[in-house]
């Protein structure tokens, strides 16, 4: 198991992404951040904290669980459902989805389906800590912490101290735990 982003790298990337969001959307009017549980949520919360510092007012991130929208339920033994908390109505807003790792793209497809059942955002953008390639669907991220090319058998683990023991990003081979 080897580190590919340290705690500081992660913090710097988060702050940079926050600035990019403000720049791209010309401010934060009608922008809503939603993290995809499990680790998309602490990422979304950290982006919200960074945005709050930039804008001088409190920005709160919500969450969007996609367990009920997965296309692979029949091949997983157990899918846990996490909370969905949408702080304001979605209609007409720019929704920024936040997740830890962008891989096949199927999680984001499920998130787009979930959003469509909840409301009609004006636009949807995507922020991820790591883009590791191997897309199976035409999905791309708007904001990326780090691009890390990987072999399909490798595993990328993002850790947030809100949930895990530490902060950072690690990579391991298929056989590693």
């Amino acid at each position: 198991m080897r580190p590919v982003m340290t705690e500081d790298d992660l913090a710097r990337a988060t702050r940079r992404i926050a600035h990019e969001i403000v720049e791209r959307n010309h401010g934060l009017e009608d922008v809503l951040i939603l993290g995809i549980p499990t680790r998309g949520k602490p990422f979304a919360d950290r982006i919200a904290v960074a945005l709050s510092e930039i804008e001088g007012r409190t920005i709160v991130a919500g969450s969007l669980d996609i367990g009920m929208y997965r296309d692979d339920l029949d091949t997983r033994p157990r899918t846990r459902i996490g909370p969905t908390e949408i702080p304001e109505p979605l209609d007409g807003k720019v929704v920024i989805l936040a997740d830890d790792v962008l891989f096949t793209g199927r999680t984001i497809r499920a998130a787009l389906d979930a959003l469509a059942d909840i409301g009609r955002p004006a636009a949807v953008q995507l922020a991820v800590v790591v883009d590791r390639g191997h897309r199976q669907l035409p999905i791309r991220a708007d904001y990326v912490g780090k691009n890390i090319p990987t072999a399909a058998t490798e595993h990328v683990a993002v850790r947030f101290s809100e949930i895990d023991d530490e902060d950072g990003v690690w990579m391991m081979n298929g056989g590693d735990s």
Partner: protein
Amino acid sequence: MRHFLTTEGMDRTELEDLLDEADAFSEVLTRPIPKVPALRGKTVATMFFEPSTRTRMSFEKAAKALSADTMSFSPSTSSLSKGESLKDTALTVRAMGVDLMVVRHKETGAPWRLAEWLDIPIVNGGDGAHQHPTQALLDCLTIRQRFGSLDGLEIAIVGDIRHSRVARSDIFAMATLGASVTLVGPRTLLPIDPEAWPVTISHDLDAVLDRLDVVYLLRVQTERGGGSVFPSLPEYTERYGMTDRRFARLKSDAIVLHPGPMNRGVEISHDVADHERALILQQVTNGVAARMAVLFQLLGGDHDA
């Protein structure tokens, strides 16, 4: 978890996981499109050998909210009257391509027999006087939404516990989740050996009222009243009914629950039934979310993986 048959023996984590998921499904039910595609392509059959419109509709709504298809079977319109055995009926329905069966039957153990005979998940919608586990789930969900947790709560279940599958399911679920359960009723309506249960007993509702957080009223089965199991309905109401006078003595944040259908004026007064601290309709709404959580747990995954 392969089947959902009983709350007896479930551990605390299993119950809390189900309640957490039921909360998530509650949120789904508030959306403009209160439906998720999780069980698309699956078929849920409700096999209700005992009449029940409300529970059956609740299960069907739960299945549909998960995008599953539903089929319903009831004995009056069926071949059971032509002498077909329960086993043959179940196998026939299964052969039509059913992925899960919800069963209600007047005899204890019937869902366990189906679980032996069939290769699909079975949900117990009520067997005899034995268990009605989804009812316990929605009851605990309602209590948890109100109080945050069941730990340390004082709950009284009042009425005909001896013949109640709702009571049996609730007792074990509530005790496992940390509540203190008291059974209140005349001796002829309490279980035969209550010392073996995780409960305390009282024959005097007035004596326990002041400390209760939740009063759970069971329907008095009027077919039973009047002379054989207890003297008369008016005497029952006098001693065990949730009258306006008794309600006024409850703690200011105590709630009243009832599994329905209510006998207004017997176990619950007309005004209490409509009070905002009587959460009977919320129980019904939570019933759909609780049943969605059960269906999702049993069908939303590959259990051979």
